[in-house]
């Protein structure tokens, strides 16, 4: 198993390098100039030029790429142009917010999505199945920013249950932390719940038609054991795969939700970076995202082996 993990890590290196080059190239292909963002839209050309020189943006692109890789080799992700702070420290500062949001959202998504999928599959073609599937479709189709705004108007303004925006660290109390995050976490989860419910239903339906389920029922095993022990366990491979993808999507989806709910996380950092064309910030943050996705994939592979001992790397 260790050899397998080492192999996957080695395979990840070229992925990350290609990803880094792509991020750098695409970002620099975008029109727009960070110097204009920093100087302001009314700034004089000489002011903009001065900032370009100060930031080293007047150097050739290849030289900038080489310098970035040189710094990366030393573990330096660069310095944000707008924050004047190291990218790594900017990300680390905001990591607790995004991780809190993503994991809270994941803890809502996975049990709810799986439960709905199992129920829909078990009572296939019933009104419950239709209800779950229609709800899942609606959940998948609604844009999260729109849902977030509606949620703020209803739950914060009308009902006054949750704060409309802002983040409170867990160090200031569990409830303040939870009340600030529950609304964005649910909004973020809704899309993924629909996605997971559909996958679980489909996987469950495949399993429920298998001979071993018929055999279990013929042997007189009770329905609960048949479903939970025999059927559900065999749906876990696709469900675990999708849950891994969902965690990645939740981190990615936080970009919109953090913006609406004013959560000072990595998603908001990226939006700021993109709007200001803060190259080091966006490059560094995307690279850290890239690392996380690769790590999540490797983790999912390891979970495969735990869930299904037949699965081997290599």
């Amino acid at each position, binding site marked *: 198993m260790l050899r397998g993990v080492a192999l996957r890590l080695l395979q990840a290196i070229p992925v990350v390098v290609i990803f880094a080059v792509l991020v750098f190239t695409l970002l620099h292909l975008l029109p727009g100039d960070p110097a204009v963002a920093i100087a302001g839209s009314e700034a004089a050309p000489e*002011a903009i030029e001065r900032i370009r020189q100060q930031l080293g943006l007047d150097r050739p692109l290849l030289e900038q790429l080489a310098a970035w890789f040189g710094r990366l080799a030393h573990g330096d992700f660069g310095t944000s142009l707008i924050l004047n702070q190291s990218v790594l420290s900017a990300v680390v500062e905001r990591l607790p917010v995004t991780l809190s949001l993503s994991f809270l959202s994941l803890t809502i998504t996975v049990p709810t999505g799986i439960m709905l999928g199992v129920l829909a599959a078990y009572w296939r073609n019933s009104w419950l199945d239709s209800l779950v599937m229609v709800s899942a479709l609606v959940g998948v189709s609604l844009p999260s920013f729109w849902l977030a705004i509606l949620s703020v108007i209803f739950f914060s303004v009308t009902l006054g249950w949750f704060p*409309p*925006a802002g983040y409170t660290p867990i160090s200031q109390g569990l409830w303040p932390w939870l009340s600030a995050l529950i609304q964005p976490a649910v909004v973020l989860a809704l899309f993924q719940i629909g996605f997971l419910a559909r996958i679980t239903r489909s996987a469950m339906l495949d399993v429920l038609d298998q001979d071993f389920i018929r055999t279990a029922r013929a042997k007189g095993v009770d329905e609960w054991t048949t479903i939970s022990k025999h059927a559900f366990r065999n749906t876990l491979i696709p469900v675990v795969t999708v849950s891994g993808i969902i965690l990645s999507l939740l981190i990615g989806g936080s970009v919109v939700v953090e913006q609406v709910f004013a959560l000072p996380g990595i998603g908001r950092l990226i939006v700021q970076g993109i709007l200001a064309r803060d190259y080091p910030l966006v490059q560094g943050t995307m690279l850290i995202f890239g690392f996380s996705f690769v790590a999540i994939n490797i983790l999912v592979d390891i979970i495969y082996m735990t869930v299904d001992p037949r699965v081997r790397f290599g």
Partner: protein
Amino acid sequence: MSLRTLTLTLSISIVIAGALAGTTSSLAQNKGGQIVYSTVAGPASLDPYMAGSLVELEIVHGIFETLVAMDENYNARPMLASKVETGDEAKTFTFTLRKGVKFSTGQEMTSADVLASFQRYAKVSTNASLLADVEKYETPDPYTFVVHLKSTNAVFVDLLKSSTYPLVVLPADQKDKPAREVEIIGTGPFKLGEWQKDSHLVLLRNDNYVPDETASGPDGFAGNKTVYVDSIRYMFIPEANARLAALQTKKVDAIADLTLDLAKRLDGNAELATLKTFPYCQQYFVLHATNGLTANPLIRQAIREVVNVDDIVAATGILSQRNPSLLYPASPYYAGEMATTFYDQKSPEKAKELLKQAGYNGEKLILQTNSNYPYMRDSILVLSEQLKEAGINADVQVIDWMSNSNNLQRGTGNWNVSTTSFCSPPLLGPQQWKSTIYTFPHIDKDPPMDAAFDSLFKSVDQQARKTAWFDIEKRVLDQSYLIKVTDTGSLRGYNTRVQGLKPYFYMRFWNTWLK
């Protein structure tokens, strides 16, 4: 006087006294408390010499002060200086400093601090060109600072009042601090408290603040400022609905950037109100004077002739006021009557005549705008329809703001017409317009305008400067480098428990208190 009359008189006196006391009490400026103010984004840096965004400047002007500042009408008024004398044909400027002014650390400000600040500004500021013509500085005593310029600059003091990249006075030991690495120590009424980027920033009352006792009250950024509250908490909420929700749920006391549509949600709520600010910015169509069709002045004038301001304003739905001029009526240089001849012409027929003279043959005219600012996009869409009415083949391109803004400033992107708003130049006056007028329409050469600007900067006589500006404004509008659309206002929302707020370009929290 009978006992009954006396009793009645006393009773009435007590009632009146009580009523007056009540009135006084309700108007009294309470001390203490925290005002929470929500803005769209937080500052990237608080180095005043690099500060260009609105929120940075609002915070910076709370912490730091300049020698000369903007008054309530955005004209120049001494602040850290008690007096400014201009001599030697506007080549020498002597600033007499107010005595006893202290930094938030308690250390007294002297001319050595002013000198170090000017030297640092020349080295690191985005706007360092302001001091490019300085020949030398002198500090004959701790309260006198003299600037000698190489050539006459009649508007040097007006340039110093600029609120963008403000030339504030820092302690002398900050002189060699690199850009954006300065310590946040100023002479202003507030000092920096906690700052968590992307989340919030707290300004605390500066107990070492020494107000200008010679002034009767606050006047723009200058005057006699008093801080009643303990602190101001800036909370950064980018989404407009969430910002408004924070105000409605009383999580914040005031919010920036409220749209007219969203403001309707405050209707009927006695505790919440809006603060409309005019003047704020001015919206223009910018015409690229050196690219394709719009390099021809007749084509540019034809475009000006089709503009129907009311239709555009109705489509954008923004807070606006008609004004034909590049300046506001409160400016001594205002030339509204002249500007009217070039404003809101709505004459497609005249445009057709001009197009004919220009030999226009249906070539494509590129209108570039962005999707980030709906009012800009909508203005361009309406203009394109107005142009089509005059027979112009208008092609609209919608890109993102960063690209649009970059193209506007650099002249790239093959555009002919775009739109944007200018805030500082109209507020600050003619001297601030020069760079904008040449940069955005990408004017290559315009000898009459060059001469008029030369006269504006060199004329010691104010009447001569007014004449020069009149010529400049007429030239800009006549040549249709810029086509004025409208003055745009700013709308902020606030809880009426915050008292003393006054409309101004920047939100100010001195002389405000909590009910």
